[in-house]
């Protein structure tokens, strides 16, 4: 570019001096999950604060450290998306102490260790997926309690399911909350879990959901498998039962979605940029939980009876006031 | 002036680096058998492929029945009633005879279902009409070459060809089959068809054709009337020098037995009994010719002898060559490498299929099967390219292999030169037993002369030589004794002075004394 930086769209504030980069994990921007959401938050911040877009999609694990380094060389704030980048963030952040880093779903972990290390320039952005999972689990369980007579689409077997991708921490936290709170609400409920070991092969997730529905008469399916999981939503629609979306409000994705477990990655990214711009970057950001509005459930559809929604709200309140602790490990 | 069926004027065709046809003219009269002759690579096939539309000429003009025509593809040629039997059969092995014949012109047309019955009827009618019996439902891959040849002719006739091009049709035929074929061709001419006939065999030309056109290095070097010429003149025209049509040789001076074969049995690829008790001995310094109609176990015999096929019974022993130690060595169950090691060299019948790796260079082919020998590698493991190249260079010179250098891929050599590569490799390995299968198949007279001389040299150097050939002329010219095979057995071993008739009788499985 020329020396005269009179670029047309960046003229609003002095804030155009900030530069922010986003490094996705191997899922890429099209993952229909946290990379995608992070990019949405990033875009929002970009529009507001007027920095230039600096995004790298990693193609495999060996790219993480390279891409973070490259990003750190050109940006003041670098977002690393995904817990798989934990070690790489530690490595790069120690090399660039004057640059700020934020990592979604993780923290800086020195190679060879498994505990987080606290670095002054790394903000770990954690989400209490289990709390979001809990709320949608409560809704599902209450609907099962209400039963077929009230909600004719149900199969009447008091069975719900989760179609999960791979067994990784964020996924398992969702499942943990879902199962735990479903049992809280409805002791006898049967919660099925299937891992498809895939976040992309839509057909596989659809089949897994169909199997739950047709074999076990599950009638509310929580998808927890990114792009693959869209197939599970579709299975529910096809069989005339219900589904629950994940990460974002997926009611637009499929008609069968009654609500979604929401994880506001976009908000967290946006908020972090905002803090950074305002000079308030912290290496100890709040846990993005229910209390901080980091997770939650999306507006329910009209298929959800009022008592189910009420149940969710009741649990939400308990969680917020601390009287209910949702485990992050899947209960037996 | 007789009417012309085909006239080709000023045909030029260049391939990268080679001019195949250089202003060639050819005139073929209606109703004649016109022979096209020339060395390997003279451009005969190219010229005929141009006439058949497989190759487009760079320039030149084609007239069919005195009418200038454009032949852009075989479809055009077929429309002009030109049929061609290619040097290499254009058949599809897994399909049946009927399918092969009607292919491209199926009864019912393209859009219809394939009608087995109608195709079969078509073939039956054709074979009756022209006296060429064949089973329409047989798969091509199960047919003998002779029958495949017949299918090719029927294919052309089915497309109602009036002008029939035959590119080296006798190259792989037995004498009997050749004789039959000639009968058929004469019959076709009587029905008003015109035949263009390519062959390397002078005798056949003199026997069959009316007129002869000779090509040399892409040029038309003469047109002869068969009645008025002789073998020597044709050969001279073809090669451009005098050719010895018969190799001189001294009577053999056989030494001790080298190879002894006792009661050998083996199965063919299809699991049939191909050898049913073959026994013979081969002496140092003699050539034993194996004659017989193809498919009577000759191929299997050679394969068993050279270690590429397992014998099911019987014994092959080889003398150790050691004067003091007279114990023989049993080589029945050795593999091909081991057989080579004990001193057996092998010129295979299918040079392109198994004797050479076409994509590889001459030098690489010169060590095929012997790469572990000290000349080519250190301790059988690390190749010595310098020595390999030097060796190849020497052999190329010694055996007159014509190619730019030792790194030329053998694919770019002519058939004759490819054969010389194999001959060079095998003959130079200082074997004690030399087995040559169809050593001159498809090569021109110049090369035949050369190869024959080399074989006799080997004999005179005291090697035991086994020659298998479908060419009676060749067998007769080379052999000191002739073994005739029939249905997996050696019917008799006779001297080369027996008459053609007598050999013919042996080849049908009768012994001479029985017949007389």
């Amino acid at each position: 570019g020329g020396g005269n930086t009179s670029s047309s769209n960046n003229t609003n504030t002095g804030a155009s001096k900030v530069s922010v980069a986003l490094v996705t994990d191997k899922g890429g921007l099209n993952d229909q999950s946290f990379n995608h959401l992070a990019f949405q938050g990033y875009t929002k911040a970009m529009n507001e604060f007027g920095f230039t877009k600096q995004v790298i999609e990693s193609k495999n694990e060996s790219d993480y450290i390279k891409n973070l380094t490259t990003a750190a060389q050109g940006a003041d704030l670098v977002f690393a998306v995904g817990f798989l980048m934990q070690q790489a963030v530690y490595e790069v952040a120690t090399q660039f102490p004057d640059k700020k880093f934020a990592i979604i779903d993780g923290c800086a972990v020195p190679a060879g260790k498994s505990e987080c290390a606290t670095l002054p320039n790394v903000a770990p952005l954690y989400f209490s997926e289990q709390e979001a999972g809990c709320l949608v689990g409560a809704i599902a369980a209450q609907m099962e309690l209400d039963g077929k007579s009230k909600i004719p689409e149900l199969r009447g077997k008091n069975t719900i399911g989760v179609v999960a991708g791979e067994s990784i921490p964020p996924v398992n936290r969702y499942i943990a909350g879902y199962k735990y709170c479903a049992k809280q609400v409805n002791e006898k409920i049967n919660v099925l879990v299937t891992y498809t070991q895939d976040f992309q092969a839509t057909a596989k997730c659809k089949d897994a959901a169909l199997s739950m529905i047709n074999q076990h008469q599950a009638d509310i399916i929580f998808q927890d498998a990114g792009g693959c999981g869209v197939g599970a939503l579709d299975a529910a629609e096809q069989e005339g039962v219900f589904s629950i979306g994940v990460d974002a409000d997926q009611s637009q994705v499929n008609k069968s979605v009654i609500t979604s477990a929401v994880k506001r990655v976009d908000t967290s990214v946006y908020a972090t940029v905002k803090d950074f711009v305002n000079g308030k970057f912290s290496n100890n950001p709040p846990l993005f939980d229910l209390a901080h509005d980091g997770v939650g459930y999306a507006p329910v559809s009209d298929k959800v009876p009022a008592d189910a929604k009420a149940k969710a709200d009741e649990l939400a309140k308990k969680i917020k006031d601390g009287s209910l602790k949702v485990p992050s490990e899947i209960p037996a | 002036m007789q009417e012309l069926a085909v006239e080709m004027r000023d045909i030029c065709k260049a391939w990268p680096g080679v001019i195949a046809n250089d202003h060639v003219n050819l005139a073929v009269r209606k109703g004649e058998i016109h022979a096209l002759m020339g060395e390997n690579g003279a451009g005969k096939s190219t010229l005929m492929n141009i006439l058949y539309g497989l190759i487009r000429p760079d320039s030149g003009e084609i007239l069919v029945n005195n009418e200038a025509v454009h032949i852009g593809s075989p479809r055009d040629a077929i429309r002009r009633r030109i049929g061609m039997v290619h040097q290499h059969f254009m058949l599809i092995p897994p399909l049946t005879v009927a399918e092969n014949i009607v292919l491209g012109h199926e009864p019912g047309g393209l859009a219809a279902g394939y009608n087995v019955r109608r195709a079969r009827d078509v073939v039956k009618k054709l074979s009756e009409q022209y006296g060429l019996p064949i089973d329409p439902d047989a798969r091509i891959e199960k047919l003998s070459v002779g029958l495949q040849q017949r299918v090719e002719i029927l294919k052309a006739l089915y497309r109602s060809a009036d002008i029939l091009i035959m590119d080296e049709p006798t190259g792989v035929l037995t004498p009997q089959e050749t004789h039959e074929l000639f009968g058929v061709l004469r019959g076709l001419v009587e029905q008003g068809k015109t035949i263009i006939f390519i062959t390397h065999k002078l005798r056949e030309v003199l026997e069959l054709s009316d007129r002869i056109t000779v090509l040399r290095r892409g040029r038309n070097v003469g047109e002869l009337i068969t009645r008025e010429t002789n073998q020597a003149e044709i050969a001279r025209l073809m090669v451009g020098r005098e050719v010895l049509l018969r190799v001189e040789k001294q009577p053999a001076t056989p030494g001790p037995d080298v190879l002894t074969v006792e009661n050998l049995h083996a199965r063919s690829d299809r699991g049939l009994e191909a050898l049913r008790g073959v026994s013979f001995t081969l002496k140092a310094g003699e050539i034993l010719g194996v004659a017989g109609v193809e498919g009577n176990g000759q191929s299997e015999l050679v394969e068993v002898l050279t270690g590429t096929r397992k014998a099911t019974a019987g014994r092959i022993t080889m003398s150790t060559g050691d004067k003091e130690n007279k114990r023989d060595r049993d080589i029945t169950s050795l593999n091909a490498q081991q057989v080579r090691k004990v001193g057996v060299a092998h010129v295979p019948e299918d040079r392109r299929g198994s004797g050479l790796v076409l994509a590889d260079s001459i030098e690489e082919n010169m060590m095929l099967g012997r790469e572990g020998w000290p000349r080519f590698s250190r301790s059988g493991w690390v190749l010595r390219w310098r020595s390999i190249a030097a060796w190849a260079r020497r052999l190329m010179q010694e055996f007159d292999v014509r190619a730019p250098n030792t790194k030329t891929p053998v694919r770019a050599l002519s058939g004759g030169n490819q054969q010389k590569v194999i001959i060079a490799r095998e003959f130079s390995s200082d074997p004690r037993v030399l087995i040559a299968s169809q050593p001159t198949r498809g090569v021109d007279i110049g090369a035949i002369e050369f190869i024959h001389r080399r074989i006799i040299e080997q004999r005179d150097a005291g090697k035991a030589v086994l020659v298998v050939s479908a060419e009676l002329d060749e067998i007769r010219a080379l052999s000191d004794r002739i073994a005739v095979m029939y249905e997996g057995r050696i019917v008799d071993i006779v001297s080369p002075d027996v008459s053609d008739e007598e050999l013919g009788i042996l080849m049908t499985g009768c012994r001479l004394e029985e017949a007389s």
Partner: protein
Amino acid sequence: MAVPTAPSRTKGSSGPDESPSALLLILQKLRNSLGRPLIAVVLAIVLGGIMIIVTSKGTLDERFTAALTAYDALFFGAFGTLQNFSSTLDNMIPLILCGLSVSIAFRAGLFNIGAEGQLAMGAMTAGILGLTCSSWPGWLLIPVMILGGVLAGAIWGGLVGFLKAWRGAHEVVTTIMLNWIAFFFTDFLISGPFKAPQLSNQTQSMPVQVRLPRLAVFYNQTLGTFLPPIERPEQYFVDVSFLIAILVLVFYWFITARTTFGYQTKVVGQNPRAAEYAGISVKRNMVLAMALAGGFAGLAGALALMGRFPYQLIASVFRSDSTGFDAIGVSLLGHSTSIGVFLASLLFGALRSGGQIMQLRAGVPGDLSYIIQALILFSVATEFLPILARKFTRRNPFQRKLAVAGPAARPVTKEPPQAAEEKSARSKEE
């Protein structure tokens, strides 16, 4: 399914008009082997540029600038700084090794789609050894891990050769299936028995003594004690396994060009019937070649584990890694020769590292580098150049050929070549 056969040593040298001068020969060879791919690369880049122009926004001028910016970034990202270049080199390591894996199989006439699975098994085995013998000293454990990786890959690859030799099971099917089996099996081990406590889907990092140092660090510790040392060596990502990859390239060259084994596998690959005639065991060579192929890929796995941050095995990594497929392109682009594989790896490695910088700096999705990769493969594969050249000279080929095969060339074509008969055999070979 036919497998493209390995080229013969004779590739560059053809035509009677060749001068015997060694230097000229080399130059000509270089032109023949490099010229075409180079033009292919240029063409691919032009097409990719058109793609950017079509899909970006703004006036034509802006679009054009966008394309230029993108390529500037691409090139910069691959070669622009020493650091970027080191990333390119780092990307090359598995590409070289897996490229050789595909190549050796090609030479034996086998199509190895299974490099990725063999790589996974190699990495897994090395990892298991590293984790279970973590108290061993580095000088012992490093070779043991590498050997273990090679061996595991060799077994996984050899199995393919064995199934083919024993039952005729087509290697394309078995390699695809074994890939997935390897992916799920390693995932099972990584997220099961060997999972690091408190981490998920990952094993512990390998013990410190087996982590291969970065090349720059290594240099500083060795040559750098005499020569000027490199500052901040840790930011150059390529590690010493690059040297190992180069050694393996030399090894491959030696095996294929200098040993009877290499010669025999080539014969087996090009003409199994000739191999039979020559007494070369087709089955044995098939198994050996596949085992060697697996060994190369297994080595790639072990080295990636030991040489790359974070020195641990992560579940589902192998499945989403495209190295095994890129390697097929590398191998074919490089004509299965060691130099070719090296250059093709350089190209692919550069596109990989450049592509990400391109996305970062020019905002063009990094996937464009995949599109360019595909375009390069296409234009190399189609060999459109000779065909265009022929079309171009078609106007008067006869005169031209005369010049080529003119009087001077007569001696070598004295027995003029001929063809029709060979055509089917020949085309089969190609």
